[in-house]
């Protein structure tokens, strides 16, 4: 069993789990989750085996583990057919991605068991399609009843869908060509749709699912165009064929001033914008919080949005073709830097104004993804990959932690029976530190990692690298924007933690919250370990003190990827001049932001009180709360016109008016023609003719009847005459 074969096997267990659950074990909750978790476990095991083989292998970047099969026999040159091949490839980038994907997926699968209240009784009024609403347990002896959380009615369906999703993500990670990436991408898009709309009886969930799918679809179209363009230029979609074909790719494309590589890079980057929810296609991600929290964690933290950045990393060679460090960056890179930086700041500002615990995290995700993309835009390949990995861990941790908090709050809601209270609103929380200690500590670790608390959190190392990269390559605007975003990140994180956990409980529901089950808290603990330690593999050499002690393993590993330049120089080459400024900045913004956030919110006592910061910001706060009214704007600018186009223009005017009108016209014309034919030709001519035939025959018969006159002499006369005639004929013709 070679490594290559094992690589092929990685996505299979979740696919099998999906098939088995859907076909056979739908009714049996324990069996379903066992199959799903076992599949995730097998994939995890295979992934770890591959990862360890990858990091212990010399020169993986030049000779990645690769295996390909012939798939489509297209593309012929003369008599030789170049079959289109698909295959697997594990190079440093995909090894690292594989690592965090299998870990987070496994943790989320295990978490889901507890999240969906496995082991709890069935709900009183639970319907498939609605979130579980609690079950009443009656204690006969003590004559009391209490309401406890109920088990999710569509339990097995959830595990089936997340298994399919895991399959798609793994396919994407191990593939060696853009086509299978696209395939995995699209399957994930579908699973995202299905899982966001998991509670399909809620109209808001349905709308959110459609919104997510439609918005990412906009990006996907451009991604497909990029794939098509790439194939038509170099005749292959394989990663390894990009750099050798630099000549062809550097030629000017259909857009003057832009090379093919740049054009393809931009097109595929638009797909990334859609999938990773960058501005302007960011609107779907906050609404996607309608799905269950494990979904939010997996899709919107660890995997799907990370797939967008992964793709961005893969198209880095295209985007940077023709660029060497020190030169002005290419068009594609400029676009990435701009959009990334803008999104980072923009989303961070919105996150400050959100009250729903998951929404804050959603905008935080958008912001952090903007970081990674901005990093790629300035050429900091390794930094972006590093942040991708660390972000996956701590964001998954934060989301799972928020799920735990929500569970606790819901428990309080069930206890008090006040169903009008939103268990996800942070203003209703408070003081959960004592009631949910494990959740509190793991969440705090994650939050610190997000804010970039120096040294002890993974987020610090990766964020610092990005800032260093931006500063060192001379892109000051990007640097300042990212620093500001980092400040806001720390601020809203502190806000979130303060409001949720610190202080006193602001509502009685918060008072009655309690810690979640082991199946939920153990994954949190595991992830928090990574949130702390994952950064230590990437300590930059120039860091005072630790830098000399610990080798920068990450940079050595991932930095050996051949990513740019016509000769495929490695990412190592992007050296930046060392300066203490970025380091100082990141320290300042993270600590400062945390402090500010804590100070601003520690006195927030009452649930309905206006936000302290909001009071000071006035109307701008309303803008932030309403997310700059982007949804409304898009509705006005795109959705209503589209609806008009389809309902009025296409349906009424074109379809019913023109097409149906044409058909009706044809029908009427045919009817009239038919009527004409009938009345003029059929009745007059044909009928007359046949009548004539009948009448004529009758009249002829009547006439001929007179031959049978009964007068024998007449018969004789006729016979005699004929005799003479015939006789003459015979005599003269024959005998003469």
């Amino acid at each position, binding site marked *: 069993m070679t490594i290559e074969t094992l690589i092929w096997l990685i996505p299979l267990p979740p696919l099998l789990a999906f098939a088995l659950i859907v076909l056979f074990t739908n009714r049996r909750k324990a069996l379903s989750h066992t199959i799903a978790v076992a599949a995730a476990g097998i994939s995890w095991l295979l992934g770890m085996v591959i990862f360890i083989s990858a990091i212990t292998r010399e020169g993986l970047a030049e000779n990645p583990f690769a295996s390909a099969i012939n798939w489509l026999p297209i593309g012929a040159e003369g008599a030789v057919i170049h079959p289109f091949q698909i295959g697997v490839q594990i190079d440093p980038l995909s090894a690292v991605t594989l690592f965090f994907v299998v870990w987070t997926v496994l943790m989320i699968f295990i978490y889901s068991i507890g999240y969906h209240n496995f082991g709890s009784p069935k709900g009183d009024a639970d319907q498939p399609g609605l979130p579980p609403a609690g079950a009443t347990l009656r204690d006969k002896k003590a004559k009391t009843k209490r309401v406890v959380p109920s088990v999710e009615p569509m339990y097995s369906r959830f595990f089936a869908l997340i298994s399919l999703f895991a399959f798609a993500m793994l396919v994407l990670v191990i593939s060696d060509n853009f086509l299978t990436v696209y395939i995995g991408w699209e399957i994930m898009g579908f699973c995202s749709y299905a899982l966001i709309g998991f509670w399909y009886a809620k109209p808001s969930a349905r709308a959110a699912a459609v919104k997510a799918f439609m918005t990412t679809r906009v990006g996907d179209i451009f991604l497909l165009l990029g794939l098509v363009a790439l194939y038509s230029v170099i005749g292959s979609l394989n990663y390894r064929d990009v750099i050798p074909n630099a000549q062809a790719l550097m030629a000017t494309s259909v857009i003057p001033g832009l090379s093919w590589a740049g054009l393809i890079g931009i097109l595929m980057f638009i797909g990334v914008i859609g999938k990773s929810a960058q501005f302007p296609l960011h609107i779907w991600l906050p609404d996607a919080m309608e799905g269950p929290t494990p979904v939010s964690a997996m899709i919107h933290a660890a995997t799907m949005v990370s797939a967008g950045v992964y793709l961005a990393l893969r198209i880095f060679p295209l985007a940077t073709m023709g660029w060497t460090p020190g030169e002005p960056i290419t068009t594609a890179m400029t676009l990435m830097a701009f959009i990334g930086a803008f999104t980072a700041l923009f989303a961070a500002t919105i996150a400050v104004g959100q009250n729903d615990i998951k929404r804050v995290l959603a905008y935080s995700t958008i912001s952090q993804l903007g970081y990674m993309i901005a990093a790629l835009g300035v050429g900091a390949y390794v930094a972006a990959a590093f942040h991708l990995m660390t972000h996956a861990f701590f964001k998954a941790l934060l989301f799972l932690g928020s799920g735990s908090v929500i569970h606790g709050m819901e428990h309080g809601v069930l206890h008090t029976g006040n169903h009008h209270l939103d268990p996800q609103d942070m203003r209703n929380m408070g003081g959960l530190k004592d009631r949910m200690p494990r959740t509190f500590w793991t969440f705090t670790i994650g939050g610190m990692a997000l804010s970039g608390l120096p040294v002890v959190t993974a987020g610090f190392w990766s964020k610092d690298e990005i800032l260093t990269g931006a500063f060192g390559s001379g892109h000051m605007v990007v640097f300042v924007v990212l620093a500001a975003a980092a400040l806001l990140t720390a601020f809203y994180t502190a806000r979130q933690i303060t409001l949720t956990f610190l202080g006193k409980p602001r509502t009685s529901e918060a008072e009655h919250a309690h810690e979640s089950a082991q199946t939920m808290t153990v994954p949190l603990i595991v992830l928090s370990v990574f949130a702390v330690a994952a950064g230590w593999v990437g300590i930059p050499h120039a860091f005072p003190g630790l830098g000399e002690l610990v080798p920068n393993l990450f940079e050595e590993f991932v930095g050996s990827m051949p990513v740019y330049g016509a000769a495929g120089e490695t990412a190592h080459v992007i050296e930046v001049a060392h300066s203490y400024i970025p380091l100082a900045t990141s320290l300042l913004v993270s600590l400062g932001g945390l402090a500010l956030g804590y100070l601003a919110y520690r006195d927030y006592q009452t649930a309905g009180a206006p936000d302290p910061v909001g009071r000071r910001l006035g109307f701008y706060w309303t803008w932030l709360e309403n997310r700059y009214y982007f949804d409304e704007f898009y509705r006005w600018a795109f959705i209503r016109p589209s609806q008009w186009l389809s309902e009025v223009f296409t349906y009424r005017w074109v379809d019913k008016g023109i097409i149906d009108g044409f058909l009706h016209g044809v029908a009427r014309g045919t009817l009239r023609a038919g009527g004409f034919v009938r009345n003029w030709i059929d009745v007059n001519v044909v009928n007359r003719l046949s009548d004539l035939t009948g009448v004529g025959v009758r009249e002829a018969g009547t006439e001929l009847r007179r031959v049978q006159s009964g007068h024998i002499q007449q018969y004789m*006369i006729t016979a*005699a*005459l004929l005799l*003479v005639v015939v006789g003459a004929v015979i005599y003269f013709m024959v005998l003469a």
Partner: protein
Amino acid sequence: MTPLQIVFLIVTVATLISAVMVVSARRMLHAALWLILSLLGIAVLFVTLETSFFAIVQVMVYVGAIAILIVFAVMLTRRDIQDRDKVTNRGAWAAALAALGVAGGLVGALTGWQAFASIRPELAADSAAEGTRIAQLGMALVSPDAYAIPFEVASVLLIGALIGAIYVAGERK
């Protein structure tokens, strides 16, 4: 023009004229009488053909029996008004045309025949030959290896006709 030819001509013309009168006489009795005349003319022709036997037979049978029979029939089927009706029916002209055509056709067909203008061969001269011929005819009519059968059949025909006529024309009770 030999005397025989003159006689022939007179007789044929008379016969033909009588025949025409037969078919065009208005009153049936006149027609019957004209028929008798034409039959007699035929008998004379038979004489000119040196078959006196048949001439006599002609007179006896045709004139003596058939013509009388016809007269009887005329008498029996007479009505007053019927002699004032038309003589011929509507197709008379066509009938004339047809008749002429037949005649013309016959004659025309015969003119091509080389024996058409042949002359009469001489019979054996002695008078005893005449009687011998009649005797031979008589012998032929009754001898089984000659013409007995046609003779008998003709007899049967006659009897059949006789019986039939009696039956058909007899009074119904």
